[in-house]
């Protein structure tokens, strides 16, 4: 049974195909692995959020350990020192909120860099034929690609936030962080999840429109930055603060204010939240339409 040119024979597969093979996870992992293939971009994109997270974690740790040390001395001076420390280092919930907002930008960078080619490259080389000639549906494909982009958001935003929250939890005496400021944990998760979800959808939606990764990258990052500039400018020129809703940053700032309560609510809070819905729905519809075209190969 050996063909003349073969060094190996064909071996039939004796096993069984899995009933539920978790195809989105397979697709996502394939995209993630490709993302890490180039080491320099990964180093450059992951270093800032890591350093940022470590700095905040140290700050949170100091906030508790020093306060505990000063507090153990007792007396009026100790109370004064404790409030000075609190003023200097801020309260932990505020620190976490600030960190989340700051890291969101790093997450945007990483997600656009790694996610821009996820669908554009498939379109350029026609890899969609390989995927859709297998039992991969449109939903499976989108879910797989989406999880792949979201992973980079988790690494640059959610995981560092978890590190800080964990530090605060473990460093606080008698679990005081959990008892007094524990609400910040679900707030941080909600904020990070919303940012990751919106940016993943945006990046994939724009990636599905073009056939070049570089164009998708410019489109994704450019649309966020240019629309932010336009929104700010137009709101000033036309004296219409509602136009700020065109900016993804402004919309998330409104979400953060609503969630963490560390800033006063913007008067246009509701409009800004509507802007957030638009930032999600428009790319999602684009993505759905484009992937439908890729699934039915004309």
């Amino acid at each position, binding site marked *: 049974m050996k063909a003349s040119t073969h060094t*190996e024979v064909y*071996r039939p*597969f004796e096993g069984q*195909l899995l009933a539920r*093979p978790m195809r989105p996870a*397979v697709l996502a992992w*394939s995209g993630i692995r490709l993302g890490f293939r180039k080491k320099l971009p990964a180093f450059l994109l992951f270093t800032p959020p890591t350093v940022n997270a470590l700095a905040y974690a140290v700050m949170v740790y100091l906030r508790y350990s020093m306060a505990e040390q000063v507090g153990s001395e007792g007396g009026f001076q100790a109370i004064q020192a404790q409030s000075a420390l609190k003023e200097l280092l801020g309260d932990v919930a505020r620190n976490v909120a600030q960190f989340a907002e700051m890291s969101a930008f790093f997450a945007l960078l990483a997600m656009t860099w790694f996610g821009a080619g996820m669908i554009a490259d498939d379109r350029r080389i026609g*890899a969609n034929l390989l995927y859709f000639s*297998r039992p991969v549906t449109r939903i499976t494909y989108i879910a797989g690609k989406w999880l792949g982009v979201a992973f980079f958001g988790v690494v640059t935003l959610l995981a560092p936030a978890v590190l800080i929250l964990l530090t605060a939890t473990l460093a606080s005496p008698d679990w005081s962080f959990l008892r007094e400021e524990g609400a910040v944990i679900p707030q941080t998760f909600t904020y990070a999840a919303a940012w990751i979800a919106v940016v993943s959808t945006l990046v994939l939606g724009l990636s599905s429109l073009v056939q070049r990764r570089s164009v998708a990258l410019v489109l994704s990052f450019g649309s966020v930055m240019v629309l932010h500039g336009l929104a700010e400018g137009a709101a000033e020129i036309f004296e219409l603060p509602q136009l700020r809703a065109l900016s993804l940053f402004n919309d998330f700032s409104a979400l953060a204010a609503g969630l963490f309560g560390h800033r006063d609510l913007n008067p246009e809070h509701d409009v800004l939240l509507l802007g957030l819905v638009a930032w999600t729905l428009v790319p999602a519809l684009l993505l759905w339409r484009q992937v439908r075209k890729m699934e*039915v190969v004309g």
Partner: protein
Amino acid sequence: MDPGAPLIQATGLHKRYGDVHALRGLELQVPHGTVGLLGPNGAGKTTLLKLLLGLLEPDEGTATVVGLDPRRRADRLTIRTKVGYMPEGDCLLPETTGVELVATLGRLTGLSRADAMTRAHEVLDYCQLEEARYRPVQGYSTGMKQRLKLAQALVHDPDLVLLDEPTNGLDPKGRRQMLDLVADLGRNQGKTVLLCTHLLPDVERTCDHVVLLQTGAVRLTGAVAELTGADALRVDVTTQGLTEVSPEALDEALKKAGVALETREGERLRVALPADSSSADALFSVAMSAGFRIEGLAPLKASLEQVFLETVAQTEGAA
């Protein structure tokens, strides 16, 4: 599904792209074995493959693949676990390694992680990519890329393999390797292979059956041996003593036996036997009456190319 039933059946398949009719009422039955789907560029071959996989929807007509209807979602997904597809285009992500690509596509078909990796190595070995498997695809030659595409089509051990122009862009060595693999799959491994190509020698070399597609319809279908054996009434004859026979005497003897002379050259003749003759008896009677000896007979076999060209010419003439 009945084991003897055709793996692919199509009835009245129509597919249009705007004003262009890619398929026009295509009727097809693909038996088990290696089948060549032959046709000039633009005949509708790739469109047919995509319809069979459910990558395209037909405008009219029905098709079944391994007894399932690709228009139904559940059937379509099942078909794709039973069919391996090798697309025509490049379509390989350049930064992945061969083994990663094949294993990932295996897992997407439904193999477990361990099975996918084992199968990836097995099919890469089979496709002679054993040393290249850990290299990124961007460093592969065209032949290696084609064999990698074949490997990914085989990773889940499908019953039916659809190959779209597998020898495209290959040098003679690469082409021979690919055709050997295709022939081995069909003849030794029990796969049904639908080889879609415009290269007649590829079909002649590897396929048992052929389906000729032209302008979106099947123009000819049958076993390669039957199609190329249809001209068996024409015979090349090697003789002894023919040079001493006068043309007039030969003509008279041939006429008497109802045999038509095509060419005469030294001791060789090419003749056409009477349509109702079941043996070469007529030729021996010619030899006896003209006075020469027959030393050898070789029935003329039509090449697939002749059959192809004649069919195309007939179709064009009819149009």
